């Protein structure tokens, strides 16, 4: 017992240090973050999203500090970074899910296909029909599987007849790889399914309104490895026809599914590059420290 005590206190001390100064001790000079500066390749030709000088603040707290980034067409980009680095906040700006938070202020230019997302003329309902979202925790409506998928098309009036709606539901479930499991129990309550099935149902619900972009906020964090693998396969399949932005805590997942990876740190976008480059030869010291597991 006595022998363990110094070890524990020593560790906490190191941990406390790394929290206070999130900088590896050996190369302090390379870890200075310059606001608004991102290393790597943040910009793309003919981007789907063109985001310039985006800042987000909650009251006096600045959660996102002057980020500029392009998200390409039919690209899978993953956002990684330690907890609280602002990656989810940034993701939620892309379809204005932050609107319901009163104290949240978004500054800068956010363009979807050269149209301003935050323009006062922009209808948020239409935006969300184009930019769908899948959440961290599977959140199916407590309704039948069919109703879950059919809800979006119904409220947007995408189907005029029952047969059209049936077709949309079937297609969406097929794309989400859920059709075989669900076709015999479309009337069953969705909340009775397993976690992985629920998450794929949520993906099916998102693609039922045929969006152009799908935002995924840690879609696999509540799933077991097998369900995670299925969702990742699904992302790979969907990448042909959708632009996908995925926030993840799993670096392996980012490495497996995404074309590009963006590393966030304390509200800064530190580095953006092709995924294999980020994971094999990161340019920024902070990125390296994070992917080698020195903090985060």
């Amino acid at each position, binding site marked *: *017992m*006595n022998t363990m005590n110094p070890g524990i206190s020593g560790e906490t001390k190191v941990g406390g240090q790394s929290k206070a100064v999130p900088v590896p001790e050996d190369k302090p000079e390379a870890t200075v973050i310059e606001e608004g500066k991102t290393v790597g390749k943040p910009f793309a030709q003919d981007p789907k999203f063109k985001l310039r000088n985006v800042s987000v603040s909650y009251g006096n707290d600045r959660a996102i500090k002057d980020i500029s980034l392009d998200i390409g067409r039919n690209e899978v980009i993953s956002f990684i970074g330690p907890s609280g680095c602002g990656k989810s906040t940034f993701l939620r700006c892309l*379809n204005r*899910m932050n609107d*319901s938070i*009163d104290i949240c202020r978004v500054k800068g230019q956010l363009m979807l296909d050269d149209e301003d997302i935050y323009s006062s003329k922009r209808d948020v*309902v*239409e*935006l*969300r*029909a184009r930019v*769908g*979202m*899948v*959440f961290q*925790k599977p*959140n*199916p*409506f*407590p309704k039948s599987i069919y109703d879950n998928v059919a*809800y*979006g098309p119904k*409220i*947007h009036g995408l189907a005029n007849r029952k047969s059209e709606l049936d077709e949309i539901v079937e297609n969406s479930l097929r794309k989400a790889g859920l059709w075989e499991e669900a076709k015999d129990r479309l009337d069953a309550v969705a*909340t009775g399914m397993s976690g992985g099935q629920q998450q794929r149902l*949520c993906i099916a*619900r*998102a693609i*039922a*309104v045929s969006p152009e972009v799908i935002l995924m906020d840690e879609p696999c964090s509540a799933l077991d490895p097998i369900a995670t693998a299925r969702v990742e396969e699904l992302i790979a399949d969907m990448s042909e026809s959708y632009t996908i932005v995925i926030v993840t805590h799993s670096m392996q997942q980012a490495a497996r599914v995404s074309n590009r990876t963006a590393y966030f740190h304390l509200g800064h976008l530190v580095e953006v590059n092709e995924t294999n480059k980020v994971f094999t030869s990161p340019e920024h010291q902070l990125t390296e420290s994070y992917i080698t597991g020195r903090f985060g």
Partner: protein
Amino acid sequence: MSDQTTQAEIVRNSLKRRYRKERRFRLYGMLAIFIALGSLFVLFADIINKGHSGFIKTTITLDVTLDSEMMYLDDPRDEDQLSMADFVAPIIAALQEHVPEADSAAERRELGRLVGNYAASEVRNLLENNPDFLGTTQTMEFLAHDRVSTYVKHADDPSYSIKLSEQQQEWVDELVEKGVIDTSFNDVLFSRGDSREPSNAGILGAIVGSLLTMLVTLAIAFPVGIAAAVYLEEFAPQNKITDFIEVNINNLAAVPSIIFGLLGLAVFIGLFGMPRSVPVVGGMVLALMTLPTIIISSRAAIKSVPPSIREAAEGVGASKMQVVMHHVIPLAMPGMLTGSIIGMAQALGETAPLLLIGMVAFIVDVPDGFFDSATVLPVQIYLWASASEQGFVELASAGIMVLLTFMISMNALAIWLRKRLERRW
């Protein structure tokens, strides 16, 4: 090593203390529940003990000869004759057949007081409706006089005073033995309005009055309460005004109900000139009183809808209105209903505000509309409990049992609805 043993001992010792504490705490809890259940049991036992006899009526069954000479009546179709005729005489004559020894004028008068005050008008009604019965003998069931009823039901109970003469007591004993006087289920209680005479008084008028009042309350308080809750929770901006409204709603929930009665008297009756004692005004007053309860519980129900469901709906592009109508309200409905039913149950048992708007009047007729004078169950109980005739005591207790039955069924309905509509996510 030695360090560890001492630590283990310390832990063991403290464990003992902790378990003792836990046992003691559990004991307190059980004691509290025992006291609560015990008092409830005593209350119920007392009410049932006092009230069960209210559900029993005493009847006198007689073969009444409708003799025209005895009643001074030749033609039952003649209004003038009907109003002058003596309908007590044939009843006394019928009683005399069972008690032939009573033949003096005084004894006859005493005999006549065995049946209720409304017996004569029952004979009259029979003849008025069936003029052909004149001169025939009909078997009629009369309600016994209240004093007879008390004697039959409570002869052994010292808390009741028997107000029959010894002569009458003898006759009643004899008639009970012959089966002329009998007891049966008190259907009068459930089929008539109030009366001056306990044996003739019923609670139906109050039940119907309560029902009409509750309908008005529900029709006003439920939609208004839920609309207010949804607006405050989902649409209202967070600012000083909504804070002020919120604080005041919470305050209103704590306002004594008699204040709402005063308000009803001043505004609905005084200012708008609505009639007194009617279910509409009563319902409106109770709706005001119930509103805060419904709003508060509905807001709690709306708050408990998980944000993930809202996000899911917003994520596929539902508008604010669609999120609320398609998801939040259906999911909050069980909670809203439960709150509303409990609010209604509260309103059902409310007396004070209704006294002020005049629903305490003595009303014999069962009300037949929202604008007809009426009284309600708790007020009827109050009236009976404060009446001087001792027959009303058991009626008041019987009324309490009826009211409690309504309340328990409403609460059971609330629980059933909650269980039925509850969804898991």
